[in-house]
Every structure is written in C-alpha cells, then in structure tokens.
C-alpha cells in the first residue's frame, strides 16, 4: 500500500523542530555570548515569565467566554471586549461611589453581565439567526461601537484606575500573614495580579465543571455538537443559546473586576483583551474550553517575553506573529482536532 510518509501536519512539526534545532546550534556556537546575555537578562526573563503567566490566566478566562459563544452559536463576538469594559466601569463605580471591594464586586458584575448577555442574544443576535453568516458578526460590531461610545459619553476618554487600600506589606490571607509584594526567585509578584490569576483559574475551573457535570452543561455541549439532534431530544436550543451567551459575557464580567486593581479603564480598555482573546481562541482551537485557558497562558507568556526579547515596544506584535503562525500551521488550534 502506498502511503505518504509525511502527512502535512507532520511536515509542519518537522519544520518547527528544524527551526528550533537551528536556533540551538546557533546558541551553542555562540555560547559565550549566550551565557552573558542570559545572566544579564535572566531576572528580566523570569519576571516576564511570571507576569505573563499571571496575566495569561485572565486572558484565558476572557477567551473561554468568547470560545463558548463561538462553540455554541458559531459567531465571533466582536462586542466581547466592550462588554468587558462595561464590567470594568461597573467595578470602578462600585468602588469609588460605594466602596465595594473589587473582588467582592465580582458578585455583582457577573450576574449583571450575564443579564446583559441574555438581552443581547435575545434582541440582537437571535433575530438575525437566518440572515447571512456575516450579519451576526456585524451586529456584534455595531454593538461594540455603540457600547464604546456610550461609555465615552458617560465617562469621557480619561483613563481611570482604582487603588486598593491593602496589598502592600503584611497582608492577612486567611489565617496567614503574607508580605506583599511576594519575592520569589528574584521576581516580584503583586497581590492584585496573583489574586486575579487565582480567581480567574478558579472561575474557569468552575465553568468547566458546570459544562462537564451539570445537566445544563450537558445540554450546552449537546447543542454545540449537533443543534438539530439536540432539538430532537427535546432541548430548547434557543434557551441554551441565550444562557450560553450570558455565560460567555459573565466571564468578562468576572475578568473585568479582577483586572481593575492593576489596570486602568477607558472606553476601549476591554478591546485590548478582546484582541488577545481572538488570538487565544484560535490558538486553543475555536470552541475548545481547556484550549482557551492554555491559549491564554501561552499568549500571556508570548506577550511579556516578546517585549523582552524583541526590540519592539509593542506588546501585541509577538502575539500577532504567533497568531498568524498558528493559523497557517495549525488552524484547528493546539488542542483542536482537524475536522
């Protein structure tokens, strides 16, 4: 039987391996310089790795929301980032007006964004279900424009941020007293970033369990896999669409509250997260939930390491290069299966 030895996908991995090999050989030949460079940049690299992973957790959470919506409804939600901005302003107002701790305000932003998601799906996305595919994309785009500029009218373009009263020096975490910022292995870890990472991972885990273990989760996955089949066994697919959209936007509600202590908010703040989320989702395989988290961590790393390694001052450059490489060599995503 005649079979080609190298399937296209194998060839890609081979090319990648070759590139890495060449890089190693070059490094080995210029060993002295490499050692010098590593000693000089060692700490910077480690710091970038840690920061990248921490922020990557939040990217993962945002991307999970996006990928969930894509997996079930088959649309790329361009308003995802703008909805996150809504959550960020909500957290901001709750904090400055009513003194609500941002980590507590998750309890408010999540249900509020969930509700907004339901409404958006019901009144904007659902009516266009039979229209050409690109119309839904444009609807989310129109929504993004609307939200961004609504927020611009309400809050102006001035970036705003909040400052936690705690998180510097000895801080009680449960029964322990921990000295923040943490210094581990030469790197600095601040409380807000650590908290964002931990909570993001916890919430992502919760969402994953919800999808895997509950009846609702099973119904959602059934609709994602085979809409008509799901309808035949009695699942109300439109209800699932709405809930899924709500869950997806609830993810950015949580992420919004988590990043505000170390980020700023302006009417376009969430869109930075949306762009990375696109990349993350493609990287992880569109529709794959664990892939989104993995992709988030990789993108966080790429972004931070890219800044250190390349002379570019632009964080996103490395991200987009990775994006295009993935699209070209592994369009089904890292964890996706080829259809």
């Amino acid at each position: 039987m005649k079979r080609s030895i190298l399937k296209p996908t194998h060839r890609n991995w081979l090319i990648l391996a070759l590139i890495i090999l060449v890089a190693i050989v070059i490094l080995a030949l210029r060993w002295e310089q490499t050692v010098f460079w590593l000693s000089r940049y060692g700490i910077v690299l480690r710091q970038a790795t840690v920061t990248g992973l921490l922020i990557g957790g939040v990217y993962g959470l945002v991307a999970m929301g996006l990928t969930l919506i894509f997996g079930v409804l088959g649309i790329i939600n361009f308003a995802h980032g703008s909805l996150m901005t809504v959550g960020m302003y909500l957290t901001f107002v709750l904090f400055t007006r009513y003194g609500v701790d941002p980590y507590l305000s998750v309890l408010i932003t999540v249900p509020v964004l969930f509700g907004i998601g339901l409404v958006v799906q019901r009144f904007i996305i659902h009516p266009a279900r039979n229209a050409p595919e690109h119309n839904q994309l444009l609807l989310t785009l129109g929504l993004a424009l609307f939200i961004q500029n609504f927020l611009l009218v309400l809050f102006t373009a001035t970036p705003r941020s909040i400052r936690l009263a705690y998180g510097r020096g000895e801080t009680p975490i449960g029964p322990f007293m921990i000295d923040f910022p943490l210094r581990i292995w030469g790197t600095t870890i601040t409380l807000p970033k650590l908290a964002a990472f931990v909570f993001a991972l916890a919430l992502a885990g919760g969402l994953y369990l919800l999808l895997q273990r509950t009846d609702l989760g099973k119904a959602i996955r059934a609709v994602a896999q085979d809409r008509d089949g799901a309808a035949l066994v009695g699942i109300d697919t439109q209800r699932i669409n709405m809930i899924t959209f709500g869950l997806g936007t609830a993810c950015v509600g949580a992420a919004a509250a988590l990043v505000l202590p170390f980020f700023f908010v302006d009417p376009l703040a969430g869109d930075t997260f949306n762009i990375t989320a696109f990349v993350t989702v493609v990287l992880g395989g569109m529709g794959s939930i664990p892939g989104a988290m993995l992709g988030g961590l990789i993108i966080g790393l790429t972004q931070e390491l890219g800044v250190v390694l390349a002379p570019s001052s632009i964080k996103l450059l490395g991200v987009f290069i990775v994006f295009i490489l993935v699209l070209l060599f592994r369009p089904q995503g890292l964890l996706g299966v080829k259809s």
Partner: protein
Amino acid sequence: MTLLGRIPRDYLILIGLVLALLTLPSFLNQFQLSIAILILYWALLGAAWNLMGGYAGQFSFGHAAFYGIGAYTSTMLLTELGLSPWLGMLAGAGLAALFGIAMGYLTFRYGLKGPYFALATFAFAELLRLISSELKFINTSIGIHLPLTGGDSWQRLQFEDNPQNYFYAITILFFVGYLIKISLVHSKLGYYLQAIREDEDAAAALGVNLMRYKVTAVAISGGLTAIGGSFFAQYFFFISPELVFGVPISIDILLGPIIGGTGTIWGPLVGALFVTPLGELTRAFIRTPPGFLSFIEGRSGLDVMLFGAILIVVILFMPNGLVGLGKQLWARVKR
C-alpha cells in the same frame, strides 16, 4: 431579463452616472462637494471589498492592510523620489496585490474559511499596523505629512486653489474602479468567484481552480483598495499607521457593501450613499442639536454611538442590504 441584455446595461449606467457626476461641481457648494467626494471614495473602496467579500465570498476583516500599503507606497515614492502620486498609486496597487497573493496563498492553502479567514485577514492588517509603527524610515507611529507644494497640479494630485479638482480625480478613479469591477463580474472570473462562494466542492468538480481564482480575487480587491488608500493620503495630507492600517478603516470599508448589498454591482455605491451622509448627519446633529436635546451638544462619541445603533437596526431589518430590499419590494410590486 436575459444575461445578454444585462451586460451592456451596467456599463451604460456607469457611463450615465459618471457624466451626471461631472456636472455636479456646478450645483454643489464646497461642503456638499466634499461629501460627494467621500461618497465616491467609499463606493470605490466598497466595490474593491465586494469583489472578494461579496462575489468570492471570502469575508475580509482586514482590508486596512491593502489600504495602508497603498497610502504608504504612493506617499513614500512622492516624498523620497518625487514620483507622481498617479504612478505611486499603480505601484501601491501592485504591492498590495502581491501582498494579497501571499496572504491568500498562505491562508487558502490551509483551508481557512469563514470566521477563521476573517480573523486571519484581521491579524494580517494588525500586524502591518504594528510593524509600520516601528519602522524608522516611514517615521514610526508618528506618521508622515505630505509636502504641500501650493497651487494646483494634476501631476502631483494636489489642488489648493480648486478643491473641486479632487472631485474630478475621485470620479476618474471611481469610473476606472467600477469599469474593472463590472467587466470582471461579467466575465468568466466573476461567474467562477460566485460559484466558489456558493459551493467550493461543486465549483472544483466543474473544473474551477479554487486556489487560483480565490487568490486572483484577493489580489484585484487588494490592488483597488490600495488606490483608495493613495487617494486618501493625497486628500488628507497626513498618514499614520493608526490612521491607515487601523481597525476602523477595515470596518468602514465593509460597511458600504454590507449595507448596500454584497455580491451586487451597485450595492457598494448605494451603501456609500447611505452610510456617508448618515455619518455626516449624525455628526452635524450632535454639533447643533434641536433645543430640547441641547444637553448632548458637542458630546464626543454620541455620533458614533448613534451610528452603531443605526447599524444594528439596519442589519436587523435589511439582512440583504438596500439592494436586496429593493429587489424584494420590486418583486412584490410586479406580482
């Protein structure tokens, strides 16, 4: 309505339209003429997008890539070599077409379709924006001012004394762009592209080389878009990565054809006729609102917010664009 009867009709419409356009400067004031210029300019860009996004069905969300290549190529050739922008335009179109071929080949080879393809085009445009923001020889993210030479010059495509010449210039470009579009749509290429849009497997089984025709569509669409970018540079006298490679350009380019009607000859023009004045009107409305709404006066963002809302409403109620709606109504009247 036979096909044989339809071919000359679009040409006739175009010629009649352009002849009518040429008389416009004697009726319109400065402001109205500037809107007319914008309409033709967006109609040209929309037509370019439509060849790829509408006819070939390859939805692009990154046409800013081609647009920016056009703007920067003609500008650099002008500032560095003193080359006429008309030649710069051709060079820009050529470069953008080459870029389109490379991008198309890479993405289609891996079978990217639908949302994946849209995201890929988006990423390519963003990549160009980020890279151009770093390049020293095009003055990084700061951008480039085009040299003002004063007076009118067709060769340098600058009209300080008689701005209506810009109108004639864009009318020429519009004419050429639509001529190319109409002749392509009514050729074998046009049929093949639509076949590919409708069903790739069926098209291939009828002897259509998918890769070749899809890449051709991207290249032509990209080249025409670049011409629009060059015109913008000449008209606005300033370009920057943010301005010409940014996401807003990609969005604005596709709005016209989507609202007018994708995959139709006149949809992009109809769309531009609708979208451009709408943008201007909302802006004017915010600038001088009626008395009872005086509190919104001059609020930045309100215009785009309104625009976003209108966009949503338009897409919800006219899923096939204005031309689609017109056809539907026409069919009902006939019955």
